[in-house]
């Protein structure tokens, strides 16, 4: 099992993941490996199992069978074990999501009453970092994503593209190993969509994180390193990717 290697360092290794909801087989034996610094697009028709796979990889849901494993954080002691995400309890998976993953949803889903910088700082504050330090760091991220000067705006005072950048900043502030994005540009026009996608890709890859993005947009997929195509809960072109 090549957890480490010269070019690629595997961060998530999912083997034979199956997910059933009653009689619906949303995923049937999918194996996926995600490396650090890699952008992976997930495509497929509506209902093909993209969101379900993303939820399994991110420890949001427990697969019916199969395993999802997560490498220790980069720079951690070599003795730190690989975590089998699919075996963890609810609370531990919550903690994993909070500490190791970042998320961007289709509608920003930011807290409307908080300012941009407060929204972006939220994961750090939840992790117990002081408000001042958290907001300082979040403000750096906002500036890096082109939102300098808008820190104290509330979400309602931002455009759709700007709000989505705040969501990206929120996903990046705690330097997660993997950022998961489920149709992050689905609600934006094509120009804004391009800008937001660039910001999302650059900000994740530049710091060595991995990006898993669900998209219907071939242009978005073309900008990723790899495309996984799902059809009826199976990967097109073989069970391994």
């Amino acid at each position, binding site marked *: 099992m090549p957890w480490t290697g010269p070019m690629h360092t595997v961060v998530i290794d999912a083997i034979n993941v199956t997910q059933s909801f009653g009689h619906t087989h949303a995923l049937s034996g999918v194996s996926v490996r995600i490396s650090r610094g890699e952008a992976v697009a997930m495509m497929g028709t509506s209902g093909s199992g993209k969101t379900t796979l993303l939820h399994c990889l*991110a420890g*949001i*849901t427990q697969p019916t069978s199969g395993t999802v494993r997560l490498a220790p954080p980069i720079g951690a002691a070599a003795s730190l074990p690989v975590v089998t995400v699919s075996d963890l309890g609810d609370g531990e998976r*919550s*903690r*994993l*999501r*909070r*500490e190791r*993953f970042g*998320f961007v*949803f289709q*509608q920003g*889903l930011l*807290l*409307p*009453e*908080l300012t941009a910088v*407060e929204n972006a700082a*939220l*994961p750090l*504050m*939840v992790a117990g970092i*002081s*408000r001042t330090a958290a907001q300082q760091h979040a403000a750096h991220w906002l500036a890096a994503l082109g939102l300098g000067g808008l820190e104290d705006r509330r979400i309602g005072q931002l455009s759709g593209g700007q709000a989505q950048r705040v969501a990206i900043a929120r996903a990046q502030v705690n330097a997660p190993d993997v950022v998961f994005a489920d149709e992050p540009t689905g609600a934006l026009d094509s120009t804004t969509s391009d800008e937001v996608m660039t910001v999302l890709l650059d900000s994740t890859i530049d710091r060595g994180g991995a990006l898993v993005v669900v998209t219907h947009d071939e242009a978005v997929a073309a900008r990723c390193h790899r495309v996984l195509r799902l059809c009826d809960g199976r990967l097109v072109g073989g069970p391994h990717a």
Partner: protein
Amino acid sequence: MRTPTLPLDAPPRPAAGSRWGLPLLLVAHLSRPRPGGSGSRAVLILPLVAFAAATALTLTVLAGVIMFLGWEGHELDIYPTVAGLAGAILVIPLLSLGAAAARLSAHRRDDRLATLRLLGATSGTVSAMTVMESAMIAFGGALLGTLLYGVGLPLVGLLSFGGAPIGAAALMLSPLVIVGVVAGMTALAALSAVLSVRRVVISPLGVRMRRDAPPLRRWHFVVAGAVILLAVGALQVMQAGTSLLVMRVTFIGGFAAGIGVLNLLGPLVIAAIARSQVKRVKTPERLIALRQVLESPAATWRQVGGVAVTCFVAVVAGSGLGLISQVPNGDLDEPSRVLFSDMSTGIVLTIAMSFLMVACSVGVGQAAAVYDRADLYRSLHLLGMPDLMVSRARRRAVLAPLRWTVIVSVLVAGVLVFPLVGLAVVLAPLSVLTIALSLVGGVGFVWLGVWATEPIVRAVVGAAE
């Protein structure tokens, strides 16, 4: 293989000339719960519960007040007056509960209304439908509330006034009054729906508020200042001695004006306190709670402000009573002793009722808010934000302003009648303690009101998995 046949015959048409047929049909259609949508069923159930609670509480309060109004013959004739005052105090939280219920039933059907517009219903049809549906829900809730009032009668009848339990029979309202309250609730809902429909644009693309809530303006302060000056002036006139009628009018006018000023200043005070704290708070839950309060101080005040007058009066009346009760027992005749004990019961009862009403409107309002923010709560759960943190933020956004309201009202009352309260603390600590404990217990009611909505959050968040 069977080929599905398309329904090619002409679709059914509404009867010609039937103006109300279509809205009624749509109401019937929309009132059916949709499969899988717990949120859509809540659109109907929440306001139903809210109207039921509002009606039950209104009828109970009314029953009490009417009963006391008939208690003449006491040498001081004080029961009717005091009961009337207590009733007047309770009108405020009661109205805000009724308004919360009405607002709730006119709200949260946005998607469905927009869908109807897309399907071609005219804006008039949709408006008529909203008004009718609100009124129907209110009517159903009011009937349910009447039942609740009836069931609760024996319990309330256990309360002791005039030296003996009052009994359920004394609290029986005449059918006419009950019909009046049910009709009033229905009318309130319809009126509120008319107003809220006028405030939104129902376009095929969705329901938008026509404008934001009006901001607080400088003239609010001017009005508040003028009313206070007027009240002070009136007090001077009264002290100079005038007829009983003038005194009564001044008293009622002063009371109404006081409430008006309170409702102008309340949101300002709440916003000021929240603003003074928001920069300094350290934890995410406190930050979110304060930002929520600041987002809409007026809405926050509408939820918790109902206890302000209660607290104020409780402090003033409670201290006074406490002092009087310190008169050595031998110096008080039996009727007076009963009277004072009744007054104490009345104060505690009024506190309990007003906090109960606030707890109901908070519970209903929170439940609606959770459904409104379902996606947001789900996403916070996905981000790994501990559910406990979300709960704390929600609770704090209600309880912090409630606490401020209680504390500020008690302080203002304490300052205004300082000698009285000071003496009472020293001479009648037990009475003061009773009042204080009632207030703490009242805040506990409201805490329960928020807590009761926790399962909804869990249901909403659980749908993510």
